[in-house]
């Protein structure tokens, strides 16, 4: 019987040995997991394209799409942690920025560094070491939208002040309620106009959750209520600006009549997505602020390199605010500077 036992043991040991190489391969590779809030968000997917395209060969990565549910994203994060495959870094675009506190705590427990992007965690979330946020300087994006409008309305008898009352009648297409970018852009664009000495009248603020379809519906109700009273439309991002344009084109408010489109109201967006730039070229979107996906992606990848390889952060090429925040400034893009 000992012989039988011996043979059984041998078989088991052999199986165990056979399994080892499967797990052992590619040990030198660094692993990054990306968690994005919603893959259908144009800006986020463009950023992901930039980042995955520029990924060094020795880094393997994984992308998880939460489909706009924080519960799903939590499960994805916990799942990858529980798999114990030793990720070197999590790059997280949180669905709910208030969930960042818990995510930071969970990742700090297992010693995985985190870079948040696009959705800014509250200051009390980024308390652990090796936890960063990379994103647009939300204040400056809204301010630059206001600057564009200021340029247009700065001259006397400008065609944009349709009722000639010297007051800017505006509506705002707001991104997701509670999203810091939405809140800040919404607040800063109006405040900046006031600071620059313009009289403003906010006709309405509609929440369209960053997306084109919601913005289309929002624009319909806004136009039905205010009609041509509206002089300026601030959209928190290009997708929503395009949603508004879709409606305005569909109901002949914007019409080309063989020539360039008439623009009875000025629409500005943020992000400078590819479709946004096309709309500028077509004369439908007045301008956008480049929420520089390229630059932000570079900031994230460089930061990832610094974290993974344990480099001295004092050499890091981007400015780090409060030890955890990296804000990337945006640029104004209109038809004038589109070619560049």
């Amino acid at each position, binding site marked *: *019987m*000992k012989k*039988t036992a011996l043979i*059984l043991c041998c078989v088991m040991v052999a199986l165990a040995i056979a399994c080892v190489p499967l797990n052992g391969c590619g040990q030198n590779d660094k692993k990054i997991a990306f968690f994005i809030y919603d893959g259908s968000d144009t800006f986020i997917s463009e950023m992901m394209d930039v980042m995955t395209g520029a990924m060094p060969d020795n880094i393997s990565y994984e992308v998880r799409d939460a489909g706009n549910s*924080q*519960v799903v994203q*939590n*499960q994805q*994060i*916990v799942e990858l*942690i*529980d798999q114990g495959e030793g990720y070197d870094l999590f790059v997280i675009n949180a*669905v*709910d920025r*208030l*969930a960042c*506190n*818990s*995510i930071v*705590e*969970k990742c700090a*427990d297992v010693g995985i560094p985190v870079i948040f992007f696009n959705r800014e965690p*509250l200051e*009390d979330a980024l308390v652990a070491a090796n936890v960063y946020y990379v994103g647009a300087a939300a204040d400056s994006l809204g301010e630059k939208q206001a600057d564009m409008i200021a340029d247009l309305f700065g001259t006397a008898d400008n065609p944009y002040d349709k009722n000639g009352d010297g007051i800017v009648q505006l509506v705002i297409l707001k991104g997701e*309620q*509670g999203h*810091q970018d939405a*809140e*800040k852009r919404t*607040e800063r664009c*109006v*405040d900046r106009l006031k600071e620059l000495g313009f009289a*403003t*009248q*906010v*006709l*309405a*603020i*509609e*929440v369209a959750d960053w997306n084109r379809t919601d913005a289309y519906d929002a624009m319909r109700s806004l136009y039905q209520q205010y009609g041509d009273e509206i002089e300026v439309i601030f959209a928190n991002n290009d997708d929503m600006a395009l949603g508004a344009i879709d409606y305005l084109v569909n109901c002949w408010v914007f019409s080309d009549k063989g020539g360039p489109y008439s623009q009875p109201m000025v629409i500005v967006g943020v992000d400078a997505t590819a479709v946004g730039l096309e709309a500028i070229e077509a004369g439908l979107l007045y301008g956008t602020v480049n929420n520089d996906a390229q630059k932000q992606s570079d900031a994230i990848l460089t930061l990832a390199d610094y974290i993974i390889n344990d480099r001295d952060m004092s050499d890091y090429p981007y400015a780090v605010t409060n030890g955890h925040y990296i804000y990337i400034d945006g640029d104004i893009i209109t038809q004038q500077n589109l070619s560049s």
Partner: protein
Amino acid sequence: MSKKPKFLKSHSVGGIIITACVAIVVVLVVSLLLATFTSFKTGISGAVNTQTRELSTQIVFNYENYINSIIETSNIIQTDIDRYDLTDETDAQAFSEYLQEIVHLNSGILQIGVYNYDQCRCIASSNAYELDFTYDKSVAWYAEAIADPTVHVFSVPYSESSTGEYRMNISKRIKIQNGAASAVLKIETSFQQFIALVEKSNLGDGGHVTIIDPNYDIVYSSLGFYGTVGATGSVIAEEIGIFKDIVLGSKNVVLGDHNMTVNVDTLSNTKWRICVFINIDRLAEIEWNFLLTIILVSGVVLFIAVLLFTGVARAITSPIKKLELAMRKVEKSDYFRMEEVDISASREVEALSLRFNKMMHKINELMERVITEQDAQRKSELKALQNQINPHFLYNTLDSIVWLIENKKNEEAEEMVVALARLFRIGISKETEVIPVREELEHVRNYLLIQSIRYADSFDYEFRVDDGVLELETLKLILQPVVENSIYHGLKNKIDKGRITITVHIVDGYLELSVADNGYGMRQQTIDKLYESFKDGAVSNSVGLKNIYQRVMIYYGGDAEMRIESELDEGTTITIREPLNKK
């Protein structure tokens, strides 16, 4: 055979077969048992995990729906508020009515108010009593909303003193007057709906929902009032340890007396986390039952296997045992008896028994040949021994006859010659070893006749013969040498008259022939020496007791014996015992 592995040594074939087969079945059953149980356990705990995660996700979604609906309302109010100039009294009045409408439409919302930025004074409210009420600016819902304009602030649910109903305040810093000024919006909601949702979910015995803030303080627990001392209090202290361990995600834990699965998730729009405890005692119970069942089934399978293999082993070994028994019988018996075995079993064993039978036949044949050869040898030996008698006696007798003739005792001489002639006729005439007792006695009588004449009536002799022994068979020429021995060693030179008694009778189923004299007798040592000389193997050349002894032994084997009984000065009796044999 010497290379036979150790573990096979001196075990029965049946034992080896049973052990080997049972071992294989045990290994098979145990590994099957382990594999089944492991896969069952993984499967069922996977299913339960999925189920509990679904359940807790559902609860989280319910909660998020509840929160989102309030936030949506808040967003609507924030959008609509720009339509009212709150500095204008009629507009403010209209806005309050608008808020009333919203409260009417949303059953979960109890009261909505807007409080100015610098004083925390109520400037519009769905509740008329609330108007112009000024709160202390340190009140949490106000202070926290002022601190971060980007988020909605959720208060800890509190029990309303009059009704005991749970309520929660949601507040947010908002823009009024189209962004010209700030204010704080406060929505008081009923938490009851959410509690009802939790209560409706089947979380099992001890299952509950707990909400914690980032500092691991309990915001709400469906177990009841947090911080209560006693059982609930200690459970909550234990829970906090569990939350700190999990942070986010799920785990199976033991809480109190119950096995629980815990899912910790974030709650949207808050920094809080929601922890759903679901009782999974049933899982352990199912696993235990399953384990019991498969152990039972395995036991039955093992039992049947043992029975089956015992049967198989017996079927193989019992014919072998039968064969062994037959062999042992042959080995134990003193004589060889041809006995065939008849075994019907497996082909191998049948072949073996066939070989055995053939071997037995061969042995039988060889034995018979040996017996025949021995017979022949014995006959020649006997002849040689018989032939030894004659010369001594013949010489002595002829000497006596000569002496009689010289002394002119013709009559006696004639008598002696006749006796001698008769004597010899028995000795010579027959080829056979055995003769009837009658003839043997006649022979001895003739001999005694000759000797009594020769020794001039110095002894008497007497025959005591039982009825019915005369026709029995006896080895021939055995009495005469014994009588001769008595005459030469017991009676010769005896002063008084000697006496020889010859007795033939049946004792205990044996024929006993004895010769008694009343001569000098022998010491015991002499008798012992005599016995020893009988058994020393070599065929003796001397006529005498040894000669008789050897002949009797050669002819009858262990069944016969020769006894010497003697007492000094009393006499000696020599008895020959032979098996009964009728002609």
